[in-house]
């Protein structure tokens, strides 16, 4: 059963890994990078421009109306926070479970987490309408003696997402320190030396430093592990603690967490496939890594599918006509098209990953990962919009239509995400050099092999 496929292919050595990863940021960026950056940053500008107009004009520029008061802004928030989850899962949980295959993907998965959470954080901040008093979300002492409502899950969100971002940032930065020191030592210019020198916090790679470093990393992994579960659980309580049929269900926290990991892995997949192709990292992000991630996508996709089914079962089993209507309305009402896109992308299409051939086919997994991203966006759309658009009062029912600003801001958030990601790829090591070296065969020499007569060192085969 044990899979002995090496995690690093090719005849890599310690120094060749350093050379390979560092050179990505040291040599000129490939043409595709400039093209992608131009595209991404223009879209980011669209986002910022539209946010400016939103501040000027108010949230009326969106398609929100009665009864759908939560539109794409909340959909996008949940979508992006969900994507962030894969990074923490890969970096923390897989680390604690000693899944060594995480080493070559954890760095950029974590970076992806940070950028996804940043993209997510924009939406709840701008959806408040009066953005200049957004600081009311924080418990600051004030003359009104007014505190945020601590019983509101919307406040828990602020803390959950804030904690998540902080811990993820610390974790990512801690992991970067040895690599930043490598960059510092390889830097040619004074400015680069100073910048990387400050960022690497005086790292020398001594024995004692490694000991402290690894303990810190372990502790941070332990700290972030509950966050993988808590953040999206809290996000789900935004819905679950309300009394809207279709939201008021106890299955929401685990269902949201599974969905988050599902969508996060799909996004890591999309990015990894592009990055390994452009930068020639096929021997570091091997087919084995991709295969493993596809298996996780398959698993979490089925958990999500099970949740869809369970929601229907509970709606029927509860005997509550409103709950039953909410779900029949989802699947066969005016938003049936969105519901079936969601089911196809999230439940049916990932089933293809049962086939080893498809799990190991780059074009197939790339397309499937994009389908999963689409499906997970539609999942949030279905949850937010269908339940609201047909609530208790039929006279209030209405059909939600997005405006150009809804669409522009959503696309723009991709621009922001990719801009940050491209800058990261350009200036920081996108694969953890120090950790990948740790899984090289050379890192595990068996000098203590007493069973053989000859005591010369060598590699374990």
């Amino acid at each position, binding site marked *: 059963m044990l899979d002995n496929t090496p995690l690093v292919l090719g005849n890599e050595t310690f120094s060749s890994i350093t050379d390979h990863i560092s050179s990505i940021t040291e040599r000129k960026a490939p043409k595709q990078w400039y093209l992608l950056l131009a595209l991404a940053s223009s879209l980011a500008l669209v986002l910022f421009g539209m946010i400016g107009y939103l501040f000027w004009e108010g949230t009326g520029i969106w398609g929100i109306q009665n009864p759908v008061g939560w539109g794409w802004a909340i959909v996008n928030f949940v979508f992006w926070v969900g994507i962030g989850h894969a990074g923490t899962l890969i970096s923390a949980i897989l680390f604690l479970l000693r899944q060594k295959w995480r080493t070559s993907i954890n760095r950029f998965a974590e970076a992806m987490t940070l950028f996804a959470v940043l993209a997510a954080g924009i939406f709840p901040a701008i959806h408040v309408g009066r953005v200049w008093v957004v600081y009311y979300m924080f418990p*600051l*002492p*004030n*003359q*009104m*003696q*007014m505190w945020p409502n601590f019983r509101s899950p919307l406040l828990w969100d602020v803390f959950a997402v804030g904690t998540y971002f902080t811990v993820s940032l610390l974790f990512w930065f801690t992991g970067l320190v040895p690599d930043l020191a490598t960059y*510092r*030592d390889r830097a040619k210019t004074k400015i680069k*030396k*100073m910048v990387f*020198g400050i960022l690497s*916090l*005086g790292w020398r790679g001594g024995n004692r430093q490694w000991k402290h470093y690894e303990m810190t990393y372990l502790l941070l992994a332990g700290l972030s592990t509950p966050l993988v579960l808590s953040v999206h659980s809290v996000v789900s309580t935004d819905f679950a603690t309300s009394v809207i049929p279709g939201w008021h269900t106890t299955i929401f926290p685990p269902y949201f967490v599974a969905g988050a990991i599902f969508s996060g892995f799909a996004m890591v997949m999309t990015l990894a496939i592009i990055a390994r192709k452009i930068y020639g990292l096929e021997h570091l992000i091997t087919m084995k890594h991709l295969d493993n991630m596809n298996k996780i996508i398959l698993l979490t996709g089925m958990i999500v599918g099970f949740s869809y089914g369970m929601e229907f079962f509970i709606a029927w089993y509860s005997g509550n006509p409103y709950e039953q209507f909410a779900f029949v309305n989802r699947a066969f009402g005016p938003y049936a098209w969105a519901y079936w896109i969601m089911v196809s992308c999230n439940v049916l299409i990932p089933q293809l990953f049962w086939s080893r051939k498809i799990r190991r086919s780059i074009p197939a997994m790339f397309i499937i990962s994009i389908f999963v991203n689409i499906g997970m966006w539609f999942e949030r759309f279905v949850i937010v919009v269908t339940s609201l658009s047909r609530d208790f009062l039929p006279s209030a029912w209405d059909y939600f239509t997005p405006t150009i600003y809804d669409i522009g801001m959503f696309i723009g958030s991709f621009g922001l995400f990719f801009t940050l990601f491209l800058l990261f790829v350009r200036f920081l090591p996108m694969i953890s050099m120090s950790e990948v070296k740790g899984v090289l065969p050379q890192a595990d020499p068996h000098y203590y092999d007493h069973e053989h007569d000859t005591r010369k060192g060598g590699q374990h085969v």
Partner: protein
Amino acid sequence: MAQLFPKWTNRLPILVLAGLVFLLVFIVFIFWYYATPKYLEVGYRPEQPVPYSHKLHAGDMGMDCRYCHTNVEQSAHANVPSTQTCMNCHTNVATESEKLLLVRESWASGKPIEWVRVHSLPDYAYFDHSAHITAGVGCESCHGNVAAMEVVEQKKPLSMGWCLDCHREPEMHLRPREDITKMNWTPPPDQMDFAKKIIEEKNISPPTDCSGCHR
């Protein structure tokens, strides 16, 4: 590898950290102290068109607040007296005073004097004078010792937190009805017993929910 940074930079991280913490506390303090009504509004003392002295009328001569502010017990709004109220006395007293020129003009023309409002609550805060007077909150509790003021000024912050302080613990601010307009009033030693009694009698339960004042 050459030394990039001199030795003193070893202390930099701790200094930066301490500086950031200090800066954060400092900013919060600045806002908490300087950006609140306690600092911004207490002491507001506009010049009035007529140099009317509350000290002379209400203090030295002992006129009751309600002689001029007649509606304060019945209405939400404590009215500013009309010129006629002034002229009740000033047709006989100080009829030639130069300070009263504007009052006589207003009386003759029928155009009201434009007094400058001192105590101003925002429009989104609903305040009812009669409810507070009926409960037994003295004028002084919110307006200070007006009878000692030559020119009226704002003595209390009138901030939301300040309102809430009393709405949460009204005991020390409730008086017997006859002491409502008394200045320099201090709670007697048995104030708590009195407050307990009056709170039960009048069923006083000051609202602390949003819609209590923001209707």
